């Protein structure tokens, strides 16, 4: 337990609250909400034990589910995003990256955005495919997936851009 893990415990507890209190208000009418809590999965140390990360991501999703009363929906999406994160990191940052954490101020911004895009796409694909009520709505699934991903990505990149300090 170092100071960094305390910070992540704080993020774990605070981000879902922030999501409900602030970012759910940016509703575009048809349940299109920026899923800003994904910041937790994006910046979770990538050199940490993957198995523990999966469990943490699952409970993180479940915690958000409790706040939204959609049991299991966010949990499944977060879990899948966490499971595919190593694949995304290697494809974006290259094989040698594996042991370096993703840091807001040190990682190149374009690479960080590409990595965020991939993670958002995986998360939203699962979120909309599992969460939708029937397959007859496949067109609306695709629409919501595309626009929901773009909307979340816009918020995530804007937040990362704002909090990035220039050296």
């Amino acid at each position: 337990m170092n100071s960094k893990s305390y910070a992540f415990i704080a993020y774990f507890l605070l981000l879902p609250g922030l999501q409900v209190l602030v970012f759910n208000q940016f509703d575009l009418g048809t349940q299109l909400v920026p899923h800003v809590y994904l910041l937790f999965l994006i910046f979770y140390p990538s050199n940490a034990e993957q198995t523990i990360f999966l469990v943490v991501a699952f409970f993180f999703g479940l915690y958000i589910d409790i706040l939204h009363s959609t049991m299991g929906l966010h949990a499944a999406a977060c879990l899948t995003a966490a499971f595919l994160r190593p694949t995304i990191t290697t494809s974006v940052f290259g094989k040698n990256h594996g042991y370096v954490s993703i840091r807001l101020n040190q990682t190149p911004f374009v690479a960080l955005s590409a990595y965020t895009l991939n993670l958002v796409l995986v998360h939203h694909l699962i979120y909309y495919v599992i969460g939708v009520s029937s397959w007859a709505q496949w067109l609306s699934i695709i629409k919501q997936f595309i626009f929901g991903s773009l909307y979340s990505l816009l918020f995530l990149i804007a937040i990362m851009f704002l909090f990035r300090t220039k050296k």
Partner: protein
Amino acid sequence: MQQLVNAIIQFRNGLVYLLLLSCSIYLLQQQSAYHRSLIAKSGIVIGSRLNSMVSSGTTYLQLRELNDRLIKENKILLDQLLKTQNKFQVLDSLHFKAIPAQVIRNGFLNSYNYITIRGGQKQGILPEMGIVTAKGIVGVVQFVEKRYAQVISILNKDLQINAKLKNSNHFGSLVWSGKDASKMDLLDVPKTANVKEGDTIHTGGMSVIFPPDLPIGYVSSFYSESTSNFYDIEVTLFQDMTNLSTVYAIHYPQAEEINSVQKSTNE
């Protein structure tokens, strides 16, 4: 044996992933409303606090709009009152009482939707009360906390509501197909009924949940297979389920008595 253990250790991430994924899908696919409510009940304690904080802020910003809507609702209610006062003298003993409550969370994207309202045991809301607005029905109370209650939305595949055609008094059950938040299906209406597009659908009053003759929606289309004796009617709701603010819980004093009578006849 050693190799098996090694294999498990090697693929532990995949196994943990599959295990947790099936956990979450199991939670998501819980068909039984009872089990679902057990989990949701723990959530409502934290969730409703947070949501009511949000909604107290947003309702303040929407006061003007809310006022307009309330005035309109009042007008509709007054019209109904005047219309029914002469007609239902006979049913005087059936006095329903309405308890106002605020919607603080409203789901309509999933196939099993729930609504959380501010208003609970303190206000006199009990499980299995019907929730209505001036324009139509909203749902049925599932369980009640001190100050909050969870409502099964009519946009929930588990819920079936008794409804009838206004003109002919033919009964059917109203269910949601899960496709469109503004449409529901009225099933099991016999072919002897004379159905036309635009006919009004009312609550049937066969249960103590909703009072009889509340408007629900109108017939937007209907069809029937030649082999079937029943119509499938598509109903467009009067109430926009994606935009709810003040709702009313229907308290029916004799509910317990009627339920116990029904139970004893079933046994």
